[in-house]
């Protein structure tokens, strides 16, 4: 039991609902208590889609799952699959029921497929559950298919509420089309019917490994489909993906190279930015990056190798991917770590005192408090529900170049690293009082107290100054 100021990811049920609501023809039934039905409000707020969320609540303690399913399917006769989800509280309640038999659709006469999540548990978190739910849907529906005559690939992107999900998948699809490769986007925007045809494709591209890992591994093991797992972030990452896909689709390497060059000349601005900015812009400047898996690694690599910043450390909130993350982060930084506590990240930021923070919305406060330029580029970032700016592909690299130009355009800030030598002293009593402040507020409290002491011309922080400075 601990005090937390924010959460990176939600419960497992939320992840399953995000995947389910991404796929046309899937109806999700959430077994939960009456106060837990909130998905539709978030769905409306973030997607602003005209369709109500395909999620129905089956209240624990209500008339019963079987009756609820009858009613839900009566009102959703075109549902092709029903995924049964249980909330954390429903799982903790110990409520048990056998898998229900779904009624036939009054319109089609067919019985929707029932998808259960037997691996669901209260300790499973959003991202991992989303990954498993997508695999479950693919496993239930995918059927052996003859390979398409012309090269096609499946793009496994983020699910609903993903970071610029539509835009990023569209950008990658555009690049593939330039190579003459057709693409199917999964899961957002796909349909149950298309799940059956996934094995027709020549390869799977995993844009967002957090949610595409299990499904693409299943397709690899079951249907022998190769996959590309490099995130198309930055010019180097995007080029690597295009070359890998070209090879898997047996394309002429010269054609791929010409396409990449043309895009580097026309679309990608990151290489230009790296060359146009004077070396002093980057020399000695340190960035830290924290967040998910894909963006934290892809952007970390890009900042270190393409831009030339020193990445002091990188980290992720996703503990289930720890081993993989630490291994890959080792290619561009000396230090990598995993935690799910935003306050630990804040403490590390304060210690590192970097010139740039790339993170999630949870790192905004510490960046603001320390006056460090902050780029909230790691998902979830949902301030722009209509159009998310893509970070993937060559267009995305230009967005990144603009963001970096804005963040690093000013002269380097005075570092507290040097400033620490001039740090104010603290009386024993003030230090004792500081110990009473919760850990997650301590850094902020210390800063405010020192500012107050400086303003008052005091060489030391006293308990009185500390008390006066608290907001």
């Amino acid at each position, binding site marked *: 039991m601990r005090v937390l100021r924010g959460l990176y*990811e939600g419960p497992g049920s939320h992840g399953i609902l995000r995947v389910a609501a991404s796929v046309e023809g899937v109806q999700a039934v959430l077994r939960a208590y009456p106060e837990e039905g909130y998905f539709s409000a978030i769905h409306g707020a973030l997607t602003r889609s005209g369709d109500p969320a395909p999620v129905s609540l089956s209240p624990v303690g209500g008339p019963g799952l079987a009756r609820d399913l009858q009613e839900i399917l009566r009102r959703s006769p075109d549902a092709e699959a029903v995924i049964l989800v249980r909330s954390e509280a429903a799982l903790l309640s110990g409520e048990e029921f056998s898998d229900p038999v779904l009624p036939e659709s009054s319109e089609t006469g067919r019985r929707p497929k029932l998808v259960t999540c037997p691996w669901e548990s209260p300790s499973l978190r959003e991202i991992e559950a989303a990954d498993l739910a997508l695999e479950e849907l693919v496993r239930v529906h995918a059927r052996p298919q003859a390979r398409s005559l012309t090269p096609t690939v499946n793009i496994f992107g983020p699910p609903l509420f993903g970071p610029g999900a539509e835009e990023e998948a569209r950008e990658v699809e555009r690049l593939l089309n330039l190579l003459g490769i057709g693409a199917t986007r999964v899961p957002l925007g796909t349909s149950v019917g298309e799940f059956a045809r996934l094995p027709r494709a020549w390869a799977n591209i995993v844009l967002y490994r957090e949610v595409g890992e299990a499904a693409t591994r299943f397709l690899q093991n079951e249907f022998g489909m190769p996959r590309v797992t490099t995130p198309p972030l930055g010019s180097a990452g995007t080029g690597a993906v295009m070359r890998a896909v070209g090879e898997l689709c047996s394309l002429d390497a010269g054609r791929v190279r010409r396409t990449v060059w043309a895009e580097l000349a026309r679309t990608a601005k990151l290489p230009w930015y790296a060359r146009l900015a004077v070396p002093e812009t980057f020399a000695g400047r340190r960035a830290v990056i924290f967040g998910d898996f894909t963006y934290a690694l892809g952007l970390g690599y890009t900042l270190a190798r393409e831009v030339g910043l020193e990445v002091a450390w990188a980290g992720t909130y996703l503990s289930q991917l720890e081993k993989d993350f630490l291994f890959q982060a080792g290619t561009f930084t000396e230090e990598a770590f995993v935690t799910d506590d935003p306050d630990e990240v804040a403490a590390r930021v304060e210690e590192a005192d970097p010139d740039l923070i790339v993170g999630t919305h949870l790192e905004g406060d510490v960046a603001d408090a320390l006056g460090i330029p902050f780029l909230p580029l790691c998902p979830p970032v949902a301030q722009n529900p209509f159009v998310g700016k893509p970070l993937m592909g060559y267009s995305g690299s230009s967005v990144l170049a603009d963001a970096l130009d804005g963040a690093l355009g000013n002269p380097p800030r005075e570092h507290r690293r040097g400033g620490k030598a001039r740090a104010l002293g603290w009386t024993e009593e003030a230090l004792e009082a500081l110990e009473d402040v919760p850990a997650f507020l301590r850094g902020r409290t210390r800063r405010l107290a020192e500012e107050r002491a400086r303003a008052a011309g005091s060489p030391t922080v006293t308990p009185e100054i500390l008390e006066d400075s608290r907001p």
Partner: protein
Amino acid sequence: MTILNESGVPDVVSPLHGLSGLAEDLGDALIVVAGTRADLHLSLSLSGPLPGSPAAPAPADAPGLPGVSFVLLEPDERPEGGILTSRIFEVASGSRDVGVVLIVACRSARLLGVDPHFEAELAERRLGGLPVRAIGISEEASAVLSKELVDETLRVLVGLSPRGVSGPEHEEPLPAKAGAKVGARAGFLGRLRGRSGGHGAHDDVFERRPVVLLGGASGSREELASDLRRAGVEVVGSVPADARGGLPGGVPELPVVGEGTVVAVLDPYLVRAARKAEERGAQVVRTLFPIGVDGTARFIGDVVAATGGITSEVVHARQVWEGIEHLRSRIRGKRVFLTGDSGLEIPLARFLANAGAVVLEVGTPRLEKRFLGVELSALGSDVDVVEAPDWRAQLERIEAARPDVVVASPGLFVPLVARGHLCRSSLALLALDPRGYEGARRVLALFAQTFERAEALDALNL
């Protein structure tokens, strides 16, 4: 008026939404949400503006939600008694001017074995007498109202109000403060405890019984208090309390609620808070809620009568109606559908019907028939009340009826707008403070503005 129980699943935004707004209204409350990842995620996810709600000011420069702290329980832990208390102590020690700590013990916390009332008692002792109370969502009810936690919070505040001169000042005697680390408010509370009766204790100057306003927002409370004083009534305070300068008051500013107090309830969802006041011996006035012109007039008349006075609001109400005739003309004849998620919809429907609108349906997740008895009997004979409406069925009925405007819950707002329906969110109506005569004008102005904007947009040649 007919009441139909559809036994469906209504679209109701979780009561955990808007916790920081609640904390802000209370002034000196620290809200500690204890739950699993799902509960904390829900609280944080719903803290942003929801569809149809007015833009909220950006949160203050503070992490998380201002005034709200989160204690995360892992699903595989079996917390020992007292652990939550330690976390509450940690949070309260880092906060200033706390007058009361409210533990929102989510269902999952209780399922994991947390006894919130035990933890509250323990925390209160550790915090040297600072009031700590557990609040939660009713486990028995089949449906929740979106304002459920507000009801629970005010129930607690009623319990913390002084009982009056003759009784003990607090329902549960607070131990002497062991330390002074919890902030200035707590010190003030200690000083206040020494007074007889606390703020608003009525003395012999007033012969009539004093009135306490329960619920509402500071603006409408001020307006209604002024109306009641005009009628010769002494309004000694409100729950939640108000301080000078329109700022939220804290526990020290709570008025006496007990024998001899008349409690005037401003909101239709304050069932438990009103019951608590009755349990303390206060008289809760059963009347219309002060929503709409006639509702406000009847409210003032009945509250005055309960204090032993007499007044007539007929002339004043007529003047108000005349003053808002231009707005009333915009709603007259309009067909309105209220999907219902807060409980506010029933008095709102009554007002709109009085103003000349045709109310097609008013939904409510749960109907407290006894508490809302006066309201229900005042609804027009043509109005259908649907208890526990199924949201899909409501969508179908809205599609079939094509109302002129829908007062929609947040989950239905976007799908209805996408289907071409003119919508206002229930959150927008709550946010504009619909109570009192001025509130009636604001409600009609909101609808008039809605129609005007729709006409302007429809006139565009896209």
